[in-house]
């Protein structure tokens, strides 16, 4: 299996994740779609790392995972504190950034 197939898969996952972020309103599900996108990216990094014979790609993947973890922690904390006040709120209700 050459590299391209992995890249195609990665692209497909990425776009599905993107569509998910844009379409879903539940903040948690939106988050999960973001995780999906990150995974797609990880996949493509690893495939490049393999085809170029360079371990740097995998190092980047490590970092991506670390950052994703941190981001999930903070993001869920935010979601938690918002959802406490307004249970059942979804992304459309959070319009405080309105101009």
């Amino acid at each position, binding site marked *: 299996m050459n590299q391209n197939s992995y890249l195609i*898969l990665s*692209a497909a996952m990425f776009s599905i994740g*993107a569509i998910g972020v844009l379409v879903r309103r*539940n903040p948690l599900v939106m988050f999960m779609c973001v995780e999906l996108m990150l995974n797609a990216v990880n996949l493509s990094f*690893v495939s490049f790392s393999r085809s170029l014979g360079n371990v740097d790609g995998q190092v980047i993947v490590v970092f991506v995972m670390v950052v994703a973890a941190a981001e999930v922690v903070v993001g869920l904390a935010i979601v938690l504190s918002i959802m406490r006040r307004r*249970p059942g709120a979804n992304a459309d209700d959070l319009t405080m950034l309105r101009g």
Partner: protein
Amino acid sequence: MLAATVNSETIVWIIASTICLLGSVGVVGSRNPVHSALSLVATLFGVAVLFVAQQAYFLAVVQVIVYAGAIVILFLFVIMLLGVDSQEDVWFVERRIWRRPLAVVAGAGLAVGILVTILVVTSQVTGTPSADPPSSDFDVANLGSVLFTKYVYAFEITSVLLTIAVVGAVVLTRKAKGAIDLDEFPPDPEADPADEADPADEADPETAAATVDEVAR
């Protein structure tokens, strides 16, 4: 593209990618957030399998442990805590009708664009495609040494980042003084959340005093 020989890797790829795609669609399309989380787990497993197929063993393990094992669990905890397993109407009609088609188009466009770009670029790469490199290149020892020499700054900074994230999470989820404790006053499921006033507005000494009295009692 598919002109490669059909070997074990191909079969693995086919199966794993099927799992990934089905999982992705599941994440996006499930009504129940718990179903979404489980689909995510499936996807992550598929990705881990693909990592193994590409000889990134360490990453596969880390993927399973960290992602599937910690992050998704975190998601499930939050879902549990908040009780947001209510069904979301995924197919509701958007207020701006053009949003959904546009989203799909954007996503597809993104995919196509990325794909085409990558494929064209990679086809222009000169030089012989190397054979699979020795697996010793990708073993943990090598990974570790690169991590601690070439990328040591990034490494340290990401550690700090994690610490900050933890601190942030604790700060964000602390209950503010005088805030209404949801355990004492569970919210009315029938109430329209948009009607509920911001607790900051209810700074009446009366209500606050009542709350404190209640709590004290």
